[in-house]
């Protein structure tokens, strides 16, 4: 394989899927969240599309935390991190590789979340599948850009899950608001919001944090 970020991502995915826990855990947690949330609606009432979209992105956010903790802990066992840093390649390749494998894992988890929303939260109206999928991909991009950058800080840290979520969740607020708003649009509640302007916000977020990650990643991942 010529492209090193791809090779890195391929290695990560092989290890995560071989072990299983790294993907089962976020899927399970997300499904439990969706199920528990379904209990909040009284019998016979429908869950509003916006609530369904919110719980979908909440489940995804938790998945981001778990996924990137797993991905960065892969280098933890024998300090392979040092090996990667000494390799003749830009440090940013590591960020890219992790973001790519994180994206694949996140999408895998979302494949389970979507039907769960239909089943537990009774959302069966989808305005436009391609539009919805495109939106999910676009927002996932922003999530993995931030996740891959800040996930790197959790390496070798004991209380990493909780610490990471406290730091990452508030940073993701603009993206999550956009996701919820656009999600409710695609789930048929498309009255008030304009997906167009939200789209602009998501693109701005992605561009800003992709750029920031490229500049800042070496500081977080490097040897001190």
């Amino acid at each position: 394989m010529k492209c090193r970020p791809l090779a890195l991502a391929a290695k990560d995915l092989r290890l995560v899927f071989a072990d299983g826990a790294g993907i089962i855990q976020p899927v399970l947690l997300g499904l439990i969240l969706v199920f528990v949330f379904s209990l909040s609606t009284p019998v016979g009432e429908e869950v509003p599309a916006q609530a369904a979209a919110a719980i979908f992105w909440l489940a995804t956010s938790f998945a981001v935390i778990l996924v990137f903790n797993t991905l960065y802990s892969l280098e933890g066992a024998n300090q392979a991190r040092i090996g990667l840093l000494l390799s003749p390649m830009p440090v940013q390749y590591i960020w890219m590789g992790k973001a790519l494998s994180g994206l694949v894992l996140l999408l895998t988890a979302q494949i389970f979340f979507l039907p769960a929303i239909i089943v537990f939260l009774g959302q069966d109206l989808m305005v436009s599948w391609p539009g919805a999928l495109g939106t999910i991909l676009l927002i996932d991009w922003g999530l993995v850009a931030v996740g891959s950058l800040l996930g790197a800080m959790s390496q070798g840290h004991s209380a990493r899950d909780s610490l990471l979520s406290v730091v990452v969740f508030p940073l993701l607020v603009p993206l999550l608001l956009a996701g919820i708003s656009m999600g409710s649009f695609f789930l048929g509640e498309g009255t008030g919001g304009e997906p167009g302007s939200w789209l602009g916000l998501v693109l701005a977020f992605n561009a800003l944090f992709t750029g920031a990650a490229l500049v800042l990643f070496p500081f977080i991942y490097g040897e001190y």
Partner: protein
Amino acid sequence: MKNMQVNANKNSNLSLAGALVLAGGAALALSQYFIWIHAPVEVTMGLVQKIFYLHLPAAWWGMICFFIVFCASIGFLLRRSPAMDQLAASAAEIGLLYSTMALATGSLWARVSWNTWWTWDPRLSTALIMWFIYAGYLVLRQSIDNRRKMRMVAAVLGIMAFLNVPLVFLSARMWRSIHPAVFASEGGGLEPEMLTTVIVCVVSLGLLTAGLLMFRFRQKNIQERVLDLYRH
């Protein structure tokens, strides 16, 4: 030998900071006069509008503190000097304190004016989200044991947090457009007495901020050096 260095350590700076804190405190006490007596009661909003005179400076100076965190974080990554990191940490603490005060006073105001403790107003929401981010920043600083790593990570977070502000604000505003807001836009011009009061309050809290920041910065600096001495 090293002890001497710490002792000789710019004590004058510390006393200047102390003087600034005192001056700020006095000025703040003086501004109470302006708030209660000098400024007239606003016609439509009534007495409660006077919360504004403390709410606004707290929010502003809080934001400026967060901006200092941003600049100091960049400075740290460029120069790797611990002092920059200590400045960022001090500014984050004070910024968090101020935004807590701004949120609390804002909430009190909202309770009287709109009969609700909380409303989805873009400025309010932005302030709350910033509060969460910087609270996370301070928690992070506490919980990473390796000091060199902690400084690096904190600096990165300090930069990202501030870059996020415009996006948070924009998204909060767009979010509001979907939900009809309880909020009406704020009234037009200020009377001259009101303006004076605002300026007095902003300046006095500014003095206090500068003093607190300088003091805390020097204190953190000495604290870490003393800690270093103990380690050897």
